[in-house]
């Protein structure tokens, strides 16, 4: 049942590149018939982790867990270690994404680098050649870092104009915070407009999804503990995430911390409270905006981010939100839930397969004739932007909350209940 949904099987039609095949390899290793080696590691790195197979599997096979465990085993055995790989992994996973201050500091530096035009100069001078191969490939894809971070845009506690009907915590994410802090502002605005009092911790650790997907389960667990300490789930009605990939990981803290008796119960409560923004809005019945975000009627299509659709099973809600917005004509995207090829660091580790999927996705987007494609994960967002740019297609990428926030902002004052600090 899972085979037709798997992008890597679709590309090669080889059993080992399918979920069924990968599971059989894992089983063979568990049964001692096969040694865990380079080939197996390569196979697990070829898997996108898009979890389309998990949605399709009637037997309820928990592929996500098998996948994470397999990658963790590979890491532990040090199968793919080369000195440069160890260096970059350590830098990214152990240093950068474990320390929010450092990450922002680096973001700040990158912003300056981009803003001053230094990046173009460097590129013109061919200095990118000095970068290691992996990074060189990534360099043109580096997101434009925003000048402000979420904490510059969102106060620690913000109250809706009307009586608050619930209290929520907002998770700002790492990439989202660096590249899309405005989307965090939009999320806060949308929550305020719907009567939620919004609490946003200034220094939030990484949720650990990057670590878990790359086989560092120990670090992922320690990040989960930090997160629970910082945002005690008991204090809130919901803990809101707006990035598909993070959310998919965030709602599985209980599995990660199952063996930790001090945290196990709180982790369970945490999992229950974590909600994707679209899911939460639909739960509390969102207020229909009275204005349109656009001057004229605009067609919008929607790409499902894998981890939102397959990991979190949030499929109908973002569409429902989009359909709520006046002045917007919704067009369904063919193969909307087929992976766009972004998949975490996949575009770096498997550039060819990633590019093929990107092309396929861009083709479908162009085919709809829509002017905007909405999606809800920073990875997909960046990947689709770069694909559209490369193909010279003029379609804007937005997130559903941005469109909704814009609609609320354009409502005639004073009916709007929000004070926006972010210019639309």
């Amino acid at each position, binding site marked *: *049942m899972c*085979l*037709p949904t798997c992008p890597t099987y679709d590309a090669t*039609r*080889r*059993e*080992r590149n*399918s979920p*069924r*095949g*990968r599971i*059989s*390899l894992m089983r*063979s290793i568990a049964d001692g*018939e*096969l040694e865990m*080696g380079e*080939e*197996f590691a390569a*196979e697990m790195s070829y898997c996108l982790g898009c979890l389309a197979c998990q949605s399709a*599997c*009637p*037997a*309820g096979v928990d592929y996500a867990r098998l996948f994470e465990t397999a990658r963790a085993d590979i890491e532990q055995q040090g199968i793919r270690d080369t000195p440069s790989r160890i260096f970059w992994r350590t830098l990214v996973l152990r240093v950068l994404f474990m320390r929010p201050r450092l990450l922002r500091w680096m973001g700040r530096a990158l912003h300056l680098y981009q803003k001053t035009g230094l990046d173009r100069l460097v590129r013109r001078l061919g200095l990118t050649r000095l970068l290691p191969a992996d990074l060189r490939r990534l360099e043109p894809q580096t997101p434009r870092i925003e000048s402000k971070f979420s904490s510059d845009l969102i106060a620690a506690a913000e109250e809706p104009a009307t009586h608050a009907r619930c209290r929520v915590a907002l998770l700002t994410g790492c990439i989202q915070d660096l590249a899309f802090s405005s989307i965090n502002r939009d999320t806060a605005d949308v929550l305020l407009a719907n009567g939620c009092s919004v609490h946003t911790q200034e220094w939030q650790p990484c949720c650990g999804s990057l670590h878990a997907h790359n086989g560092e389960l120990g670090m992922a667990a320690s990040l989960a503990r930090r997160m629970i300490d910082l945002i005690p789930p008991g204090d809130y009605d919901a803990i809101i995430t707006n990035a598909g990939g993070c959310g998919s990981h965030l709602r599985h803290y209980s599995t990660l911390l199952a063996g930790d008796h001090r945290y196990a119960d709180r982790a369970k409560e945490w999992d229950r409270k974590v909600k994707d923004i679209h899911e939460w809005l639909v739960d509390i019945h969102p207020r229909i905006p009275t204005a349109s975000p656009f001057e004229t009627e605009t067609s919008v299509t929607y790409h499902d981010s894998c981890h939102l659709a397959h990991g979190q099973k949030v499929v109908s809600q973002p569409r429902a939100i989009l359909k709520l917005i006046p002045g917007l004509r919704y067009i369904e995207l063919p193969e909307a839930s087929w992976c766009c090829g972004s998949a975490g660091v996949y575009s770096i580790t498997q550039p060819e397969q990633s590019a093929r999927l990107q092309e396929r996705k861009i083709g479908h987007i162009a085919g709809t004739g829509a002017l905007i494609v909405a999606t809800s994960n920073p990875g997909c967002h960046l990947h689709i932007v770069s694909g559209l740019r490369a193909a010279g297609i003029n379609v804007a990428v937005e997130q559903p909350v941005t469109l909704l926030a814009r609609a609320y902002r354009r409502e005639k004052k004073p009916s709007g209940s929000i004070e926006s600090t972010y210019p639309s």
Partner: protein
Amino acid sequence: MPLKESIFSELRACLGGEHVLTKPEDTLPYGFDGTAALKQSPGAVVFPADTLQVAECVRIATRHGVPVVSRGSGTGLSGGSVPVTECLVLCLIRMDQVLQVDPANLTLRVQPGVTTLKVDETAALHGLFYPPDPGSMKISTIGGNVAENSGGLRGLKYGVTRDYVMGLEVVLPDGSIARLGNACVKDVAGYSLKDVFIGSEGTLGVITEILLKLLPRPRARKTMLAVFDRMEDAAETVSAIIAEKIIPCTLEFLDQMTVRCVEDFARIGLPVDCGALLLMETDGHPVVVEEEAVRMGDIASRHGAREIRTAADAAEAQQLATARRSAFSALARMRPTTILEDVTVPRSSLAEMVGYIAGIAAKHRLMVGTFGHMGDGNLHPTFLTDERDAEEMERVHQALDEIVEKTLALGGTITGEHGVGLAKKPWLRRQMGDASYELMKTFKRALDPAGIMNPGKIFD
């Protein structure tokens, strides 16, 4: 004895290196099909692109005395494409071209690796219809369907794969290519050799091309769900519908456990507290469809259905059929190992058989979910168990044996659509009787004297 390097190089020369897999990481995943607990990794896996390459591969294998196991998508449920030791797996999924659609003669010529779904979709483009629809149709290949003579949800009215095969091209164990049957609706020249290959499970040769018969697409269709408190009532409803001379296209049965598991997966609001569900569908002329639907609803109500739901539109009907198609896999949620039976009895004995299975499960303290194509008497009692528990497996085998015994006593068959493969070998002689069992082996010996085609399947 592992395969020799020389055979690999011959195969590479014939197919190109990338279409010959020999590394364990590449070949291990071909070690099984959809059957639980059967596993054997092959020596090599090859992907021929056309009939000539198939013939060449078979010749190479024959020369080296290496067994050949044909394989479609490996969804078989009787172990048919599970490799034998150090064999060559001939995977046909690269041969996935639709060769010709002939609306004037209502036929479709395809390569064996085309999926069943694509066959029907291609037919639909021309307003035509390919009725056999196994639960695995999204992924199973038409070659695999022919080799297993697969059935499906519409078998009651439309029959099985055999009823749609007009011609075959096959590669025989000596590498020669034979064409059997043709596009004539009437053809009585000599023995019906194509029929010997249909359902032969890869033991006689490799099917490389298939000429299929199509029907006009039915103009109307109506799908209903009847909800029962008691399984026996559902079974009696089926017998009553047939007895009233209505032949709907689908009468699918799901017992309570199956309904729960399917709902757990599909979340479409099935009544999980019911005793059994009957999925009923009629198709054809709009007027007839309307009338039959009303009559079937009445019969179900008379036999104790507590509720009849009608699908509002095609999308909802599709959703119901998809849910039913996932029944087997959904049951696998319950326990580590799923063992599925395929017994079929004459339709008048259905209620008795359903009751008997429930009794056997209770007697041996086993978890059994039953679903199936009830309209054609084909039941799939599915044992949910754990292969690591030897004592429980012993009870499972005992129960299976008793169910088979009862089936044969009622004049039924040990397999309605999944084939004999490895899983049902022990009972074949009992069903067939000595003379016809030996006759089958005579065919096998005549066509495959060296015994290289899928040896050990169907019989030893």
